[in-house]
């Protein structure tokens, strides 16, 4: 017995730019959601067959298994350099890095700053969950003051262990950066805004306008020791005040693109 599906309208399906596999991400982690937003943007822009993904070291180390595009895996923090090598030699391709906060904001600060300074035509999806998830929840540069992690067991004391790093603000002052925003995925409205920003970021690259970076506040229920719902609430209550959402750099040439993605939403 089969159901005739022809009378139904498809309203939700796996994007072509995602592979049909189970992911290794923890239950409730928003990496999977962010992957989907990236894949939807790639599909909608019709760039899947010319996109190359650069995975980081961290929770997203297997990102290349989930994106249905050519992909590679960079040494810890070096994704922007590796992506530079790919993009400079294949300028017709769309190259993006997908990096966590330990990868991009600690060991890879030099690489991301200089990629931005050079105005590399790359898209950077920067996922900030305030800790090193893969290694089991250690303090990251983005860990909040007072936050307990396995390597700040008494809470992060800024006088001893530094202050949370605000990446979007930092990158936005570099002249080569064309589009730098911070978004969050803690509720539907913000998920939609994140999607529009990711799409804009890819369009910035397609237009050759310079570096585009979307920082996404993301949950880590496992290492935060919270339920998925609590974790989403914690993003809003604890992270957003330290990492304010917003557009930190929208170059003049990018403004029309943001209008297009906003209208499409």
């Amino acid at each position, binding site marked *: 017995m089969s159901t005739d599906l022809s009378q139904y309208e498809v309203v939700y399906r796996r994007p072509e730019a995602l592979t049909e596999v189970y992911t290794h991400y923890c239950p409730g982690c928003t990496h999977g959601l962010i992957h989907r937003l990236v894949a939807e943007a790639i599909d909608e822009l019709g760039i899947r067959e010319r996109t190359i993904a650069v995975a980081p070291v961290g929770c997203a180390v297997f990102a290349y298994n989930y994106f249905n595009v050519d992909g590679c895996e960079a040494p810890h923090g070096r994704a922007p350099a590796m992506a*530079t090598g*790919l993009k*400079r030699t294949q300028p017709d391709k769309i190259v993006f890095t997908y990096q966590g906060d330990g990868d991009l904001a600690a060991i890879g600060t030099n690489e991301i700053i200089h990629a931005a300074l050079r105005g590399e035509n790359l898209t950077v999806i920067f996922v900030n969950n305030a800790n090193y998830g893969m290694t089991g929840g250690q303090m990251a540069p983005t860990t909040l003051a007072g936050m307990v992690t396995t390597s700040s067991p008494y809470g992060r004391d800024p006088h001893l262990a530094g202050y949370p790093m605000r990446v979007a603000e930092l990158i936005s002052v570099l002249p080569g950066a064309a589009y730098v925003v911070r978004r969050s995925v803690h509720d539907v409205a913000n998920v939609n805004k994140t999607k529009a920003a990711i799409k804009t970021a890819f369009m910035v690259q397609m237009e050759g306008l310079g570096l585009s970076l979307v920082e996404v506040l993301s949950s880590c229920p496992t290492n935060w020791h919270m339920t998925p719902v609590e974790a989403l609430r914690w993003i809003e209550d604890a992270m957003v005040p330290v990492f304010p959402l917003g557009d930190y750099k929208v170059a003049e040439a990018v403004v029309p693109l943001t209008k297009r993605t906003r209208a499409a939403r």
Partner: protein
Amino acid sequence: MAKELWKGNEAMAEAALRAGVEAYFGYPITPQTELLEYMAREMPKRGRVFLQAESELGAINMLYGAACGGVRCMSSSSSPGISLMTEGLSYIAGTEVPVVLVDIMRGGPGLGNIQPSQGDYFQMTKSLGHGDANALVFAPSSVQEAVDMVYNAFDLAEKYRCVVVILGDGMIGQMMEPVEMPPERPPLTEEQRPDWALRGAKGRPPRILTSLNLTAEGLERANQRIQARLAEIRKNEVRWEEEMTADADLLLVAFGTVGRICKSALRLARQAGYRVGLFRPITVWPFPEQRLHELAGQVRGILVVEMNAGQMLLDVKAAVAGRAPVRFYGRLGGVVPLPDEIAEQVASLAASLPGDGYRPARNGHQGVAPVVASAAVKA
């Protein structure tokens, strides 16, 4: 084609251009900087990619990215910069993508100095970063040889999907010599790109390039694949040079610049009546161990000369396997040994060997002075 006078670093850059290099990434460091500067000037003229990175870490990872696209690419650096690059080299070796790297060695450890040295021998032949991997490592002893090595390096890197290193030193990089440049080859076409290259998954399944393999069995298989390729290199690419070994009962072993200086030392020692020959490894990985093992059976003693504290010495001892006594003479910190001091060491070696009536014939030639104790390292 007529010979022209070329500076080593610039000659290697020109050789790479003629070999069809499409992208160069580097970072300034003496004594290799002229190679980077030449690329900065010449690559844009040919519509190719030159990029000065923010560090050697940046440079090696840009190289890694370009290599993943199946692009002919190279970098160059000198010892402290190579130390930074070893992280990336390990990943490149683990991912099995081809790159060419020129290392113009300088004195170390630490910041050391900018004089010629051979202190990177271990680093380049034994420890390409973490894990098990080796590069195919060539040690030029003249600018012409360096040019030919760079020119052929890309084909070899692509054939074996490996790192090819040209291991020169400040002397090779800085000196000027007459060179016959090889002919210009066209860059690769899209059809010539390897079938693993990341070029966008157009009309085919996506390709993945990674050094990550979380299962023990999977990673062992990857390692076995790498080792099988390295075994092919060992079989096909071992190169060395011999001079006057036919009748030799003493053997000098030296690579690169020192190998060349030893040719002069050999002439001095021969004039002094010593039947000495020279064995110069041209590939230092793979090391030409088999031929050296054979020669060790023919000679009474071996003198290894290096501009380090005895690095290739270990490979020589392993190849000789006790068949002849092995002595070492090394200069450190960028001091280049001179032919006469090496000849003195040959005489000293001969004098130290068990007496069988062997004495040099001193037919009016300038005698070899007694050994002078110096800051040099002796083993």
